[in-house]
């Protein structure tokens, strides 16, 4: 009898209106995944350059991690955060912003953001987030990643 094991690759969604920022982030994520001792490092990447495409990609892919810029051309990342958490409450959302006002940080935490990166990007900031994800993901109940054994 064949046992079906569902291999589950994790997904990252990068939301930023500037293409270069997404590239930089993706480059550094892959570099850190290969260089640092991290538990979860098999990811596929999805990208969105504005709020509406982010919403669409999110509902199609239901990513595990989102890097979400707050200042988007067609809306606020904070509004998206609320919608994402409604669709997938255990999603690990990292807010990204050039302005870390107390208001922004407070609203982010209250709406369920896991972390907050103040631009500019540095490798230390990105690594801190990935280490946090490792701890977070370990604690999640993982029904989806367990082997799916077909019962007779």
């Amino acid at each position: 009898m064949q046992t079906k094991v569902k291999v589950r690759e994790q997904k990252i969604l990068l939301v930023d209106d500037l293409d270069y920022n997404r590239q930089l982030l993706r480059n550094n994520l892959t570099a850190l995944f290969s260089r640092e001792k991290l538990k979860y490092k098999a990811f596929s990447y999805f990208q969105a350059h504005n709020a509406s495409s982010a919403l669409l990609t999110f509902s199609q892919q239901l990513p595990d991690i989102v890097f979400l810029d707050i200042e988007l051309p067609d809306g606020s990342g904070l509004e998206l955060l609320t919608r994402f958490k409604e669709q997938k409450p255990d999603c690990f959302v990292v807010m990204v912003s050039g302005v870390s006002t107390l208001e922004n940080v407070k609203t982010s935490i209250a709406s369920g953001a896991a972390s907050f990166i103040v631009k500019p990007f540095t490798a230390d900031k990105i690594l801190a987030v990935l280490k946090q994800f490792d701890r977070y993901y370990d604690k999640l109940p993982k029904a989806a990643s367990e082997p799916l054994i077909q019962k007779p």
Partner: protein
Amino acid sequence: MNLLFAEDDKLLAQLFQLQAESEGHQVIWADNGDAAVQQALSYQFDLIFMDIQMPILDGVSAMQMLRQLGYDRPIVAMSAEEVTAVGFDLVLKKPLLWPEVQQQLTKFKAIPSITLELPTELKEAYLAHAKQLLQQLVVLSEQQNWIDFMAIVHQLKGSAASFDLAPLSQLAAQLQSEWETIPLGQRTERATYFLEQCKACKLK
């Protein structure tokens, strides 16, 4: 080590800074809890000293906010009263006595900093993009279209430093922080000055 000292009493902060710097540490001072959170999120500190009673955001709330955001580096509380909040790595009794601080400091280690990977092609592509933005700014400034002008300045502030163009980010940040206070009649002049400063950065 790189230390963040969050304390609203300026004299205490200066004293700490003198003592710590004489031992070879670098100290950045934050005079309230909000500033401390913002500084801490730069992830450039090995250790944070956090006063409990501070304006805008107290030390316990600032620590809790950081912990909620996954900040896992050490935070030391400083207080004359007992501190019961969970999340501090250590509580130092105020007034701080330097020999004791010195002894406690040996328990913590400097955290090695890692560098951002920036492929040359990506850096060059961004550079070309930044030059284009600066040209757009010249046009927008002539048109006195300040809304679009400042939108681009905001973008430069957020992104340039990630691509090894920190001076450009700083200039943009400075302009942004001043902008609302500049009278309408002086905006063209200030914008021109900003563009000249950017030019002087010699984007390479």
